[in-house]
């Protein structure tokens, strides 16, 4: 049986993927949109359709900003494949999918990868204990299941942390404390870029409001040098050391950690696309041109998966990539492209400021205590990684063989950046020289039964 063929395949139905589909379908291109969640919306607009009916006010206006986009997307005529995971893209641009236990291959002339961001790991002692979650995880529970925890402690920094703590407060949940790790050094490096950020007054005002409301409703702890989570089989609290050397202990069974988001590079790397180390945002990102075109002429990357810009920039990046493809299909859209390029630049004007302000201090990017788990899947501690480095492991892939870090199911998503930086600081090499884990398909574990369900030849 021949594989189903489409002109455009879009992977990810967040703002970037949805907006891209509006442009490609309007140009009459046959478009399929694949997403592993049950509804469209991506991380930012998760569960929007259901929430619209009950509209909890505590999610805030920035959440309901997605309503128009989601509505247009629902009517745009793209073929939607929810609950469907892409586990490989081959050199021949075959896309391998798995949905409800069944695998299949489709092909497309052009592929737009819009798989978004993941949270940067925050390896503090005790972060694997039940009761500790990422802030994004806590926010997802609020959006998707309308549940929240009383007396939680939020630890870290970045817009998503303030937004979620604010949503918690608006939902009537009591927040025990917010421990903010943003340091004076971050402020000093960010301030010169504040004038540029003024091009986004709305976003600045929104952040200002979140932080103000948080300060009025809970204790905010600043000037922090170390954080540990206490507890044996469940989180019992946070122990936080201040720059003065003083210690603060806060009891809580719910600790939420966050120190920013980074592009989710697993699919783009496993597809063999070129990537580069982003010095400003301190993460890997695919090499793309201004329209999102990757090192493969047929593959575009749009949204936070191509570099963090936030939800609005993601939607414009989706439009930009789609209109570039539409132009290559013989329908040039010069004015539209110019407009999207300018809008995109406009949205990105706040990033130099935010990236510097919320770059976590090095002692939070790297683990401090020896017992801290680095690789969650294989339960490899900082001491284990240090021992591997002492015995000569000189790169991320070699380190896998020495101590199993990065060998688990998450394929390095929870430890890759930490391990890489530990190696770089041990060897004195740059992050680019050190490199990242070599990622191979499948990007999500797939069972033999699922593989066997493929009709026709297996992907190369």
């Amino acid at each position, binding site marked *: 049986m021949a594989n189903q063929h489409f002109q455009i395949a879009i992977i990810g139905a967040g703002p970037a993927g949805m907006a891209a589909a509006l442009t490609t379908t309007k140009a009459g291109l046959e478009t399929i949109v694949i997403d*592993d969640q*049950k509804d469209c919306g991506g*991380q930012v607009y998760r569960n929007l359709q259901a929430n619209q009916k*009950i509209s*909890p006010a*505590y999610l805030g206006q920035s959440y309901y900003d997605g309503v128009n986009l989601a509505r247009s997307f629902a009517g745009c005529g793209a073929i939607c494949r929810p609950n469907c995971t892409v586990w490989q893209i081959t050199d021949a641009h075959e896309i391998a999918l798995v949905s409800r236990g069944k695998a299949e291959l489709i092909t497309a002339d052009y592929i737009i990868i819009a798989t978004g961001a*993941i*949270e940067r790991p925050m390896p503090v002692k005790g972060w*694997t*204990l*039940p*009761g*500790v*979650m*990422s802030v*994004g*995880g*806590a926010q*997802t*529970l*609020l959006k*998707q*299941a*309308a*549940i*929240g*925890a*009383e007396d939680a402690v939020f630890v870290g920094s970045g817009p998503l942390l303030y937004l979620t703590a604010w949503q918690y407060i608006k*939902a*009537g*949940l009591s927040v025990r404390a917010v421990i903010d790790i943003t340091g004076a050094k971050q402020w000093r490096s960010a301030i010169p870029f504040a004038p540029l950020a003024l091009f986004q007054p709305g976003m600045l005002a929104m952040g200002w409001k979140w932080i103000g409301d948080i300060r009025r409703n809970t204790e905010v702890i600043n000037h922090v040098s170390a954080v540990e989570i206490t507890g044996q*089989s*469940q989180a019992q609290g946070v122990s936080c050391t201040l720059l003065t050397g003083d210690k603060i202990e806060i009891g809580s*069974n719910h600790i939420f950690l966050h120190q920013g988001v980074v592009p*989710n590079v697993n699919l783009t790397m496993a597809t063999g696309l070129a990537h580069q180390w982003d010095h400003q945002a301190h993460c890997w990102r695919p090499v793309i041109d201004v329209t999102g075109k990757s090192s493969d002429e047929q593959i575009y990357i749009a949204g936070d998966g191509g570099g963090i810009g936030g939800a609005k920039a993601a939607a414009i990046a989706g439009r930009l990539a789609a209109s570039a493809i539409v132009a290559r299909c013989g329908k040039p859209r010069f004015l539209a492209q110019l407009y999207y390029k300018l809008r995109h630049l406009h949205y990105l004007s706040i990033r130099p400021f935010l990236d510097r302000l919320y770059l976590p201090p090095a002692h939070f990017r790297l683990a401090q205590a020896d017992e801290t*788990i680095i690789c*969650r*899947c*294989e*339960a490899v501690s900082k001491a*284990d990684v240090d*021992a591997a480095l002492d015995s000569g492991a000189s790169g991320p892939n070699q380190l896998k063989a020495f*101590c199993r870090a990065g060998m*688990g*199911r*998450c394929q390095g*998503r*929870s430890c890759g950046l930490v391990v890489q930086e530990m190696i770089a600081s041990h060897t004195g090499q740059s992050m680019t020289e050190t490199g990242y884990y070599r990622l191979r398909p499948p990007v*999500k*574990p797939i069972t033999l039964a699922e593989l066997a369900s493929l009709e026709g030849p297996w992907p190369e």
Partner: protein
Amino acid sequence: MFKSTMPQNGEIVHLHFDGKAITAFDGDNLAAALLRAGKAQFRTAAKNDPRGPYCMMGVCFECLVEIDGRPNQQACQITVRDGMMIQRQNAPDNAGKTSG
């Protein structure tokens, strides 16, 4: 403990977690339903490390449970079904493993 931030309505479905009966709402996310029922630990990782859901977006694999006899199911990516039998999942290598 997690609690509802909105009045919850919807049809009740019945699940079993490690043999104990739990109720959830039709359409519930499985990890969310277990957390709402006060279950924080979903599995043990290597070296008997207790774990529970961390990312809620399919990235970390900390929410793995056994469902109706099938291991390695990501609870945060699954919708509940009436009668689901869920078991905490123990890392297969816990028995032999000591360190490193």
